[in-house]
């Protein structure tokens, strides 16, 4: 008898469900507990996420498949794909059969969706290394973003290294999460911002300089708005200083 496993949404929870799928009953599917639709035909159990069991699965993937595959499923876990748990489950089932060979297969129906989804996530994370804008609020730097995927954790190390002497907050408004960093050490936390934080005295000045620079740098004879929106989709623009300001200019 197969079973639907419901987990708490954490990566550990997902790996624990995969553990149970091997050592208890086979999983029909894995779903987040909050959004699960109960049905008459498949029994379901709620899984308590267990860091020890999760670590065993984590190590097994690393040892028996590859680090690359481990990274890929982590990226997929961060994606907004609604069937991501089942994609990961099927991929791992194949992976434990084939071993590291699975990394060389691209067009297999269980592998391709993983590659495509992971690419979307890593692409968006890479994009936001550039498309993030900090404002100086006297005490710390504050940035807000609304990404499609939950990429916050992929940005943290980069900015913690880059702005090692600063304190900053990177706020994912969509998911009410934030990276909070105090000079090199960072942690991920639930976060919501009610009141507007006042800018430092110089903030407006530099924003204006940047917006002016941004409008000036484009060459009129080469104007290509379509190409621009290919690189900077409309949905990102309201958090970008230069697009907000240059509309007013």
């Amino acid at each position, binding site marked *: 008898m197969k079973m639907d496993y419901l987990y708490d949404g954490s990566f550990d929870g997902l790996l624990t469900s995969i553990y149970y799928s091997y050592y208890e009953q086979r999983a029909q599917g894995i779903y987040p507990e909050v959004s699960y639709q109960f049905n008459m035909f498949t029994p379901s159990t709620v899984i308590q996420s267990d860091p020890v069991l999760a670590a065993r699965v984590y190590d097994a993937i690393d040892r028996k498949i590859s680090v690359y595959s481990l990274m890929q499923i982590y990226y997929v876990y961060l994606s907004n794909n609604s069937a991501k748990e089942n994609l990961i489950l099927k991929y791992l089932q194949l992976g434990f059969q084939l071993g590291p060979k699975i990394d060389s297969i691209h067009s297999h129906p269980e592998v391709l969706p993983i590659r495509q989804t992971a690419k979307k996530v890593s692409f968006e994370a890479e994009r936001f290394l550039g498309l993030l804008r900090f404002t100086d609020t006297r005490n710390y730097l504050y940035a807000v973003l609304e990404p499609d995927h939950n990429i916050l954790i992929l940005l943290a190390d980069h900015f913690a290294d880059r702005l090692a002497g600063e304190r900053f907050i990177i706020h994912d408004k969509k998911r009410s999460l934030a990276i909070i960093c105090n000079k090199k050490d960072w942690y991920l936390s639930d976060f919501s911002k009610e009141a507007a934080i006042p800018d430092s005295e110089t903030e407006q000045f530099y924003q204006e*300089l940047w917006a002016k620079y941004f409008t000036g740098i484009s060459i009129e004879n080469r104007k*290509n708005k379509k190409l621009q929106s290919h690189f900077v989709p409309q949905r990102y623009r309201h958090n970008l200083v230069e697009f907000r300001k240059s509309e007013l200019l």
Partner: protein
Amino acid sequence: MWDSHAKKKGATRLYRTYVCFIHYPVLELIGVMSMGTLEKLAVLADGAKYDVSCASSGVNKHNRDGIGNSKSFGICHTWSADGRCVSLLKILLTNYCIYNCNYCVNRNQNDIPRASFTPREVADLTIQFYRRNYIEGLFLSSGIERSPNHTMERIYQVLDILRHEYHFYGYIHVKVIPGADPALVNKTGLLADRMSINIEQPTEQSLKLLAPQKTLPVLFAPMNQIHHQMTQNASERKIFRHVQKFVPAGQSTQMIVGASKDSDLSIIKATETLYNRFQLKRVYYSAYVPVNEGPNLPALSTSPPLLREHRLYQADWLLRFYSFKADEIVNEQSPFLDTDFDPKISWALRNMQLFPLEINQASYEELLRIPGVGVTSAQRIIRQRRLGNISYNHLKKMGVVLKRAKYFITCQGCYYGGIPAESALVRQALTPVAKPVQLCLF
């Protein structure tokens, strides 16, 4: 005794606030900087925007108790209305210039607003933009104000402030001023990540026509110097790990396309020579945007040859990643690139006797020669076929563009093109069809 100790403590604290003040001079500077900084930035960014290079790639650096780092894949921060990426703060130190190059917007005889930044203004602006994550670093170019040495020295000062005072580990690209003293180039190169000298024209004749004060040997001298010092630096670093890196992200250059009568053949030949002789990281092409009037220049109404520029970049990619030779891309019989087809298809159509290739047997080099197969998909094919035969249905999933590739391949012995693999027929099948335009009633 206690008293003197307390005094000492007080003294240290005073000293500390003083240091902080030096490191964050923003508040004090704002009074000085806001006076015309906006206007200056507008003028000096305008003068620099025709330089196309904007890469921030080629070097990995960590932050060591300062500000900034670099990623070797390069990071784009925004895209301007012409669709070009903005990665570095691209500005001129000054747009005063003693030269009078015909194609240049900053040439001596032009009556345009002129301005200069002080090295400290540029450094402060860079840091302030950088910590807000507007930019990945600095691209510093300059008009030649008094003499090449004077300008190069000022460029060095900017780098000196950024690297030694602010401990900035972000990306810096500087232009080398042709004719500057090699010692100056050397000491700037130890602080910069990438350096470039624009040769602007592929041949001596067209350079003479458009930039009478410049000659190719003068432009090649610093390129040669940088190339030699980079090789020397690399061999030194094999023995002594802590030798300071010299221009770690390599050098690049730029050629203007469409200002002179030069053919694509001479441009691509020149490109190949530059890659082989100086091991350049990149050669950029800049479609000429008419900014000046002159007897040797295209009319002001000419639009920039964007398609030609695009085809040249495609050819450049073939040289760098697909191990093509310049002779294979263009030749004396057809010195210009085909506008209808990309250079790889053109080459394939001229060499139909080599095709169709069997996907499951062709070598990596052969796979790269198939139109519609790129570096990524070729690597995927190589890896996946070790585990089993690849069928035609797999190819699309692996990123092969079958629309083009199908005429040039067989898969497990089958040919899927539908028409005989002959040059004329395939050419006809691949010719782009003009898109139907919705007619307007009014």
